[in-house]
């Protein structure tokens, strides 16, 4: 375990968020167990928070608020997901009033248990996926590649997309905003270059607000071999494994 002297030595880097990996884990473990260091660092965080409260605000462009709200709305759980989460058939209760019905009820219960088991499995998979996405979008070692139309000045209302990748993760996440609907018969497709191979990331399915998110499986952990990623417009009926049109948005290493 990290000692208090070592914590004091690196606490400023911790406060700044400069620590990474093992050192970060060690200091967090120490702070869980050492109330003296925890209190001191918490005091510094409160002090910096107090200074932050006093920062004179500058109004950001309205488009940033719109983009934040559009992203948040796009990532909101749907009604279907919410109701699925709350679904728990035993809430309605049962009472063994009719002895004759017990056998039938047991059979029904067995079937329900099976359904429930499958649902819980689905839910676990979904939670596991959510956890992976959360790690991809929040851990310090995540690489974020911004796909833009070109090197011109930043335009917050122009279409743009990001690819989140971590060497330790077996998924990539692609998010897109400000997209206009694809023309009839066309779809947006995502591609990325691993070594000298172009891999298909799949179709970017937009919601009504022109935003999308796409999860790509990467069982081989190829993050460090990726040299570029881009989005093209392709024929919807063409199940092509390679792009057939020029990139609309690109990121290059």
């Amino acid at each position, binding site marked *: 375990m990290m000692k208090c002297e070592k914590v004091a030595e690196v606490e400023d880097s911790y*406060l700044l968020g400069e620590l990474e990996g093992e050192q970060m884990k060690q200091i967090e473990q120490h702070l869980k167990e050492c109330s003296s260091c925890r209190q001191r660092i918490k005091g510094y965080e409160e002090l910096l928070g107090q200074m932050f409260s006093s920062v004179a605000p*500058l109004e*950001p462009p309205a488009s940033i608020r719109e983009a934040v709200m559009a992203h948040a709305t796009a990532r909101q759980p749907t009604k279907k997901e919410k109701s699925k989460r709350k679904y728990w058939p035993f809430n309605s209760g049962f009472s063994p009033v009719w002895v004759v019905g017990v056998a039938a009820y047991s059979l029904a219960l067995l079937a329900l248990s099976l359904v429930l088991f499958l649902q819980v499995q689905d839910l676990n998979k979904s939670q596991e996926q959510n956890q992976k996405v959360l790690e991809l979008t929040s851990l310090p070692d995540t690489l974020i590649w911004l796909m833009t139309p070109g090197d011109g000045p930043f335009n917050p209302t122009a279409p743009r997309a990001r690819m989140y990748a971590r060497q330790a993760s077996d998924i990539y996440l692609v998010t897109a905003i400000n997209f206009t609907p694809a023309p009839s018969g066309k779809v947006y497709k995502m591609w990325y270059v691993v070594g000298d191979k172009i891999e298909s990331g799949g179709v970017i399915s937009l919601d009504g607000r022109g935003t999308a998110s796409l999860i790509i499986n990467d069982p081989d952990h190829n993050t460090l071999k990726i040299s570029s990623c881009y989005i093209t417009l392709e024929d919807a009926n063409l199940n092509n494994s390679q792009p057939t049109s020029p990139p609309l948005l690109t990121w290059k290493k």
Partner: protein
Amino acid sequence: MRFASEKPLQNPWANSSVEELVKAIVRSDTEALGELYDRYSGRVYAFLLRSVDKEMAEELLQDVFLALWQKAAMFKPALGSFDAWFFTLVRHRLYDTLPSYQKRLKYNLPSQPATGSSPLELVESKFDLEEYVIHLFRDADIRNALKDLPPDQRQAILLTYFGGLSQREVAAKLNLPVSTIKGRARMGLQKLRQLLPEAL
């Protein structure tokens, strides 16, 4: 057209505490996120503009609020104030981005300074540094407390915690060991805690 009996539409979260807003955000309430954005985005944006250009500040501002949307459940009011927790999130997000941002600047990709002086220029100008202090903070107690610090401690705190420079960069610019900058920043924080006791 509005009938006389109709009340104007009101933001349901307008009078809510920050803690209530965060609880609602955990429940995926986008209106609560909008209210929190309205209360905090100006400060986050002003803070970010001290360290990066407008383009990157806008990108990070969006990032910070999306991170808040995802991580709000991690805020525990019993463990400290929202401002402390949120500013830690903002600071960490900024410092995660700085290495790739500085690399971009190095290769002269599009970027305009957001303020008149870059943090590194401020290191060399005592006058600008004082201006920087006065213009960044609204609270006179904080400005006075910073003025009461020895200049080298004030400089270390402002440039690292509010200027977007790493301790190594400040040390290199001032031609001093990193340990000296670390010591100054630590002493400065300790003294500020004494001068601003509400933060304890």
